[in-house]
């Protein structure tokens, strides 16, 4: 089939077949990245874009890694993306105000008589919840695609999944954006125990796993159990039901401050024991002050300090170092990561008091990372984010909603995991026959431009065209390393749209 030149539309961001030859000629082809460098860089970010390849060329492997781990790569977002983020009301308003507005709406709703007005008010409350969740999802994806520190962006995604919260539960929707921006993001490369404590004190986690309801005499073990089973130690690592119960007692009183800011009455004896931090409150009146024994160590009943002690104790366990190292290696390296690598990461974890950046250094300097290159199947988030990065290469999209829809179709909606265990990290969860063919269809949506990424919300006039992937980036870092089977497929493409579709569907692109 001949390519009808008149049909080709150019996005202007990259080379266009019909008018693009001069642009190709201008960019003097740089020497291709070595296979090892390309493989390394594909895992260092949500796969490749030109900006990260340029950074890599300028700084080298260790230079880039160090700058990322020290959080020194802070290039501004493209203006179009920055403007979208600034326009999200959920980011413009403090969380407390958002929650208060919703609570007042609910109270008003309760006092209304049944009827049309009430139904209308109910609908608008529901709309508020859904809008908040949608904004949080769009924020997360825009940052993942356009954030300059791609290693950090992946870690934000990794921790959001590790400390998973489900937007559909209660008011978590209103808190999800705050959770991503204020709880996970600032701690993504810091000390693990600080990250645990930040999630422990976050309204989203307090609500999702019910610790806000955990009080002296009305103990709720839900969070205590998941804190050890899913967040730190792993199931079967040796803690007992007794430990869960003791930890639940330690966590009594950790909850959310009254939203309306009313003055709480604490007697002179307990007042000094109150801890307020943002929306978090440790309320000594709801705390069990008995002495506890956790993982064989005695923790004296003292108030909030018990919680810090418990988090320190738990995150110092070898089981925690192993559990977290293993999950990281599973995310970046292989479904069944080599034990040698997990052990070395685990040693770093323990020696550095759980410094996430140092553990990542061990991982990204390891020979195992490269030995497994090209064999780790991308989960839907990695697929969608990396496909948009490669296809549009830094050009600001106007509407992230298609990405949300694709992730829904692929079964990995953002903040959509109902159970607290997070989405699977291995290929089994994502590579069923139905999921593979759906993935190819989404590859086609992206590769052919049959999508609304460039059509602003509310506009019914489809904008944008299909992307051009045959850019210098492709020739430098992708084309030379493709398998024979993928190259053969690309050679059979009868249009650039089809060529894009094949590339984005290929095993080379879907594994890294």
């Amino acid at each position, binding site marked *: 089939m001949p390519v009808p030149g008149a049909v080709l539309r150019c996005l202007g961001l990259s080379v266009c077949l019909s008018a693009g030859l001069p642009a190709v000629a201008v960019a003097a082809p740089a020497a291709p990245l070595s296979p090892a460098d390309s493989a390394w860089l594909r895992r260092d970010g949500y796969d490749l874009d030109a900006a990260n390849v340029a950074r890599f060329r300028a700084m080298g492997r260790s230079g880039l890694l160090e700058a990322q781990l020290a959080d020194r790569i802070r290039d501004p977002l493209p203006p179009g993306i920055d403007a979208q983020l600034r326009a999200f009301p959920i980011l413009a308003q403090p969380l407390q105000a958002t929650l208060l507005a919703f609570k007042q709406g609910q109270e008003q709703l309760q006092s209304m008589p049944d009827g049309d007005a009430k139904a209308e008010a109910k609908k608008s409350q529901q709309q508020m919840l859904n809008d908040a969740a949608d904004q949080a999802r769009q924020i997360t994806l825009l940052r993942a695609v356009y954030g300059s520190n791609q290693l950090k962006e992946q870690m934000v995604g990794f921790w959001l999944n590790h400390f998973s919260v489900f937007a559909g539960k209660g008011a978590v929707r209103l808190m999800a954006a705050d959770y991503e921006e204020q709880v996970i993001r600032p701690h993504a490369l810091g000390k693990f125990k600080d990250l645990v404590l930040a999630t422990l004190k976050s309204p989203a986690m307090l609500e999702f796993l019910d610790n806000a309801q955990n009080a002296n005499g009305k103990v709720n073990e839900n969070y205590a159990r998941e804190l050890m089973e899913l967040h730190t130690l792993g199931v079967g690592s040796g803690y007992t039901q007794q430990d869960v119960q003791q930890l639940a007692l330690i966590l009594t009183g950790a909850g959310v401050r009254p939203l309306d800011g009313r003055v709480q009455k604490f007697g002179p004896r307990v007042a000094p024991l109150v801890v307020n931090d943002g929306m978090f409150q440790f309320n000594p009146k709801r705390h069990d002050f008995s002495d506890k024994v956790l993982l064989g160590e005695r923790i004296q009943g003292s108030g909030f300090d018990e919680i810090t002690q418990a988090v320190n104790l738990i995150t110092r366990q070898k089981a925690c170092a192993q559990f977290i190292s293993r999950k990281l290696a599973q995310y970046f390296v292989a479904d069944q990561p080599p034990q040698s690598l997990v052990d070395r990461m685990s040693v770093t974890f323990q020696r550095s008091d759980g410094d996430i950046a140092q553990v990542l250094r061990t991982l990204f300097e390891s020979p195992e990372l490269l030995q497994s290159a090209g064999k780790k199947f991308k989960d839907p988030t990695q697929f969608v984010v990396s496909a948009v990065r490669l296809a549009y290469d830094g050009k600001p999209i106007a509407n992230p909603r298609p990405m949300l829809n694709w992730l829904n179709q692929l079964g990995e909606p953002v903040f959509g995991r109902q159970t607290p265990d997070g989405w699977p990290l291995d290929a089994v969860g994502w*590579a*069923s*026959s139905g999921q593979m063919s759906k993935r190819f269809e989404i590859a086609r949506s992206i590769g052919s431009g049959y999508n609304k990424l460039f059509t602003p919300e509310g506009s019914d006039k489809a904008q944008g065209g299909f992307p051009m992937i045959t850019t210098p980036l492709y020739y430098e870092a992708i084309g030379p390393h493709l398998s024979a089977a993928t190259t053969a497929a690309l050679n059979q493409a009868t249009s650039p749209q*089809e060529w894009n579709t094949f590339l984005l569907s290929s095993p080379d692109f879907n594994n890294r």
Partner: protein
Amino acid sequence: MNRRDFLVASAVAAATLPTLSFSGKLFAAPASAPRFLMVFLRGGYDCNNLLVPYASDFYYESRPTLAIARPDPHNPNSAIALDGHWGLNPVLHDSLYPLWQRKQLAFVPFAGTDDLSRSHFETQDNIEAGLAGDQHGHYGSGFLARLAGAMPGSAPIAFTDALPLSFQGGRDIPNLSLRGVSKPVFDERQSSILAAMYKGTTLAAPVSDGLQLRQQVSKDLQDEMTKAGRGAQTAQNFAAETRRIATLMRDQYRLGFVDVGGWDTHVNQGGAQGQLSNNLANLGQGLAAFADAMGDQWKDTTVVVVSEFGRTFRENGNRGTDHGHGTVYWVLGGSVHGGRIAGEQVAVAPGSLLQNRDYPVLNNYRDLLGGLLGRTWGLSTAQLQSVFPGARPNGLQLV
């Protein structure tokens, strides 16, 4: 398409398209081979407004706004008497009641699991894993995947977007939702090229199956696709979906799974009319359509409708019901010994509620499903134990 047509079509395809081949499981099902469809109602449907315990005053006391009226020939919104104690929601009058009259439909009240968490996710997962109570939380494989493994040629398929836990842990079990069926996005040339890229990789089978299935299904559903103008049709109702499912289960697939949501009716559940009854009507029409569309194969087919739990016996303050425990399972099929309420029962009274809240479970789903599958599929004891380890199969003489 019968097996011969398929082989011919495959041969033609093979001549022109050397690379796209199905991974070898797409056989025509032998005409008399058993078929099994599991229908999972996700969300915990309110069984008390499906199978109405109309002889119980306690039911009417507990549900001042939700109860369905006692059978009354002059009231079309009253329950249809099935026996002296139980009545059927009247919205099923034209769809499932005829199957009941033909004795092809049975209900098993007080059915469910030994999972008392009353959590949707945990209970659904535990049902799909199919393990005994002391093994809860082990989600390595689902019981349908183990059944497929024990019965070569069972031709399993999930009619869902993702592979449900029931079918996980098996070998290359395909999934495809038939809710919306459109013309395949890729033509045969493109499908072959896509599949060829994955040849020899670990994903070769799912890739090739997924692409082939899309082509195959659109061929099988050709009539409907042609009628649908632009070639795409979204199931407006469950019946449209189940007719498609029947098309595939008549000829090729024998072990199917589909799920239906929307049952978590905490608020404004409605009585003989309203939210829940609309859902039940849709479900009933879907099951009746399936029975009809299975044609001659209906006699070899068993359908079981399950849900993770029942709901509170008493209505709540929002004219709805909350998470409960025991529920009512439905068993349908051309050869089912139906027209009866099967299994252990207890009088519906305050004293018989579990924790003064909901139905107890007297008929464990593992024993029931084990009994049904064991008999219809002719499973040995060892095979049954691999599907439901530790279960005591009891099909309640339903098959």
